[in-house]
């Protein structure tokens, strides 16, 4: 059951490492048996998922960064998928 945006505080899975891959010039999220390639938006969202910010706060920050574009639905879907796939908890 998805929790409300002002309750959910997503954070990266234990042991996950976010970095830039210089050889392929792409952002990646590294997990024990996985390398996940990120687009710039994915990286921007994951960087804010620190376990203290709520999903609502993350959306607000991103909306400000992307000059007021409505991002809530997209970010919520990304966070939901990331949680299903074990990238976030």
């Amino acid at each position, binding site marked *: 059951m998805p929790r409300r945006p002002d309750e959910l505080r997503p954070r990266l899975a*234990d042991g996950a490492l976010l970095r830039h*891959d210089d*050889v392929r010039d792409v952002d*990646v999220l*590294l997990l*024990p048996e996985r*390398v996940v390639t990120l687009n710039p938006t994915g990286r921007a969202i994951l960087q804010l998922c620190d376990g203290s910010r709520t999903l609502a706060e993350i959306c607000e920050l991103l909306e400000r960064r992307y000059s007021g574009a409505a991002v809530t639905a997209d970010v919520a879907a990304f966070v939901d998928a990331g949680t299903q796939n074990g990238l976030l908890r």
Partner: protein
Amino acid sequence: MSVEPPLALTAELTHRCPLHCPYCSNPVELSADELTTEAWADAIEQASRLGVLQLHLTGGEPLVRDDLEALVDHAARLGLYTQLVTSGVGLDERRALRLAELGLNSVQLSFQAADPALADRIAGRKAHTGKLAAAGAVRAAGLPLIANVVLHRLNLDHVEAIVELCLTLDPQRIELANAQFHGWAFLNRLALLPDREQLDRAAVTYDNLRRRLSGTVELAWVLSDYAERRPKPCMGGWARYALTVAPDGAVLPCPAARSIDTLTFHSIGDRPLAWIWRESAAFNAYRGGGWMLEPCRSCDRRAVDHGGCRCQAFALTGDARRADPVCSLSPDHAAFVRSLGDQGGRLRYRRLGHSSSSKPSAAISRP
């Protein structure tokens, strides 16, 4: 053909190991030679420059090297995601904490069974209690724990108890990996191979556990190639995503590749790692599909499974280009199935200095 850079390096720091598990995939002829700290640091750095993002520090037992801390530190400075693959023997809280501080990212810890007596019998020494303490040390250091259990004839009836035990250790993931038959495990394959009924019962148990634990802990179940009708895309394709450096510095496309003695493998230090990856004959031997024989060459699954495992094809038929005999389309499949007819028997425990006279030759003879 353009060659993409590798993603992962498996560094087999040593073949020394306190355990003697008969299912070990290390080669039967274990190496006593080991690279120096400087040579390992150089190999890891070259791998990072080549594009490697993940480092698996394994063995043997990597904890027996007292430069493990220095190598973890080095890898962390390069930004590598570093996983320690260990039996846990000798991993106390102090060492786990130190490794975490230096930048280790996760620990994969092996368990042999839930029952201490059976676990120690499989490991060939008393180790089980120490492993439980090691799991505690890993979690106390804040590191994610991956519990890995190799399944076979001796422990497949106890999957539920094994998972229950692992759950008490607060793991991020539990891997139930049915034994693959390389190295020592190949030597012991008839003693390790389960009955079909035993395997089917375990698969049902796993399925129930997976449903019960859904959303809490990640549970992985890997079938043995021997139990499949079609082969797995071994390593995602030969020399495509990963490479291995053996304790003595031999650079291999996978940990078992050295068994293919028709190939010549270079050592780290002989040549730049980038050259070995891109240019060496051994790494290019089974890339793409040009090397394939029938029925793989015209098979509609050739891009899916790449003809299966080259090491398995070599071990079973003596020719690494043949279709993996676990595939029911392979002309060697019937002989392969017959060769497994007489299961059970004595286990041979993994030891350094094992006589080379017992090196297996091709296990099935072709008509």
